[in-house]
């Protein structure tokens, strides 16, 4: 009869974490920046239809790196959570903190209990009245949650990209400036000059300027080209 070798819990956790990190490091980066006009979400994404950035609720957006099927199922679960909560209580009762904590619990449970951990890293962004009241929650594969200020960069070359963002970041930046900064930072890591970007924003003044409760808006290719090439 064969017996299983003893593996210490530390080793098991380390192996799982290494496995997840490797998966995430292969992915292309995503930057989420808080700025004067709201929150800009910029991802390097060659596919125009398999999104890395998504809308969750009125003021809440989702950005992810890693395996598409895993973060897509988390995004859909987030939309369901938010819609059920908003329908059974009120729209203002859906908060980024609540959603991030649900995500942290599911990621943590999968990390310890399932065959393999999720190879994803998520950001839950919630736009507030000003830069100070914006929330950026960063969630990692093991269920750790961090409340970040100013910006979040995730993905393979997160550190290099973050260094590039940190120098140019300003609370007074417009969307155009923030998106240009993010695009420039994402290029740091790449050799090709033309990156295909997926960009969306959470508009701080969506009610007054667009008459829309839902702050999330995708920036289409034409508008993006204008933003990136136009004067700041």
């Amino acid at each position, binding site marked *: 009869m064969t017996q299983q070798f003893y593996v210490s819990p530390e080793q098991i956790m380390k192996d799982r974490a290494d496995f997840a990190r490797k998966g995430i490091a292969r992915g292309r980066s995503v930057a989420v920046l808080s700025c004067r006009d709201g929150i800009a979400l910029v991802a390097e994404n060659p596919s125009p*239809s398999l*999104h890395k950035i*998504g*809308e*969750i609720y009125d003021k809440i957006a989702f950005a992810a790196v890693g395996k598409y099927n895993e973060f897509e*199922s988390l995004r*859909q679960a987030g*939309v*369901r959570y938010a*819609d*059920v909560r*908003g*329908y*059974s209580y009120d729209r203002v009762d859906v908060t980024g903190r609540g959603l991030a904590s649900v995500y942290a619990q599911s990621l943590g449970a999968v990390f310890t209990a399932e065959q393999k951990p999720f190879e994803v890293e998520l950001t839950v962004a919630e736009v507030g009245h000003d830069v100070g009241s914006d929330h950026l929650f960063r969630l990692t594969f093991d269920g750790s949650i961090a409340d970040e200020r100013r910006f979040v960069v995730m993905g393979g070359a997160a550190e290099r990209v973050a260094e590039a963002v940190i120098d140019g970041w300003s609370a007074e930046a417009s969307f155009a400036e923030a998106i240009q900064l993010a695009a420039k930072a994402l290029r740091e890591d790449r050799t090709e000059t033309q990156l295909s970007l997926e960009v969306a924003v959470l508009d701080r003044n969506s009610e007054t300027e667009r008459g829309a409760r*839902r702050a999330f808006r995708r920036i289409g290719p034409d508008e993006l080209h204008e933003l990136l090439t136009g004067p700041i």
Partner: protein
Amino acid sequence: MNDFLAERVAAQATSSFTEHLAAARPELLPSNRVLPTDASHLAPHGTTVVAMSFAGGVLMAGDRRATMGSMIASRHIEKVFPADQYSVLGIAGTAGLAVDIVRLFQVELEHYEKIEGTLLSLEGKATRLGAMIRSNLGLALQGLAVVPLFAGFDLEQSMGRLFSYDVTGGRYEELEHHSVGSGSVFARGALKKLWRPGLSEAEAVRVGVEALFDAADDDSATGGPDPVRQLWPVVYTVTRTGHRRAPEHELARVAGDIFEQRSIAGREA
């Protein structure tokens, strides 16, 4: 084990908020309520809603009265709501259920849009609303019927379209104009005379308000414009650019015009 997991994943892969609620939180659905056999006297009723097409879109207008028997339950109730950017719905019938169905329908459309990343087609929205009304059939038989009117701008066909329903969820596309609720007979008569093809948006607003005026004239459950409390019907138009709620001052002016014209005419009926 794997088959089971795959089945579970497939079962969860629905874009419908209603289906998700039915599986996860069935008690939240408006239709899942237990009530006595005849409950029609328990809750306020909302009354007349009119809808019509005009050049470049559709319009829907509802009066502001809810009644319980012969009493006025509310003078401020709203019966016409935006469903999403390109559609509106108006509801006649049991007010409490109607408001819940509207809320559920709004979330249903937004949920689909967020999960799928595209808007539902206008036909798809109309079918979905029919299914919701059908699920309410049990309550309708207990006297708590909800009858909606649905209007939207079809982006594929580039035109405004109207749909009416019966309590069994039957869906019928209406041409030109339609009305539902207790005052609908009178509103319909007025629309037949006032409506014509190719109305402008401003003319359509006037026709809508005037049809409700006529309904209120003959139906005690329909509220007319109220200059004392400055209450006007709720009027939404939907065009290619999305829905728009007619502002109070515009409605006050239109209602004022109608009062003036009818006072000058001085006719009894």
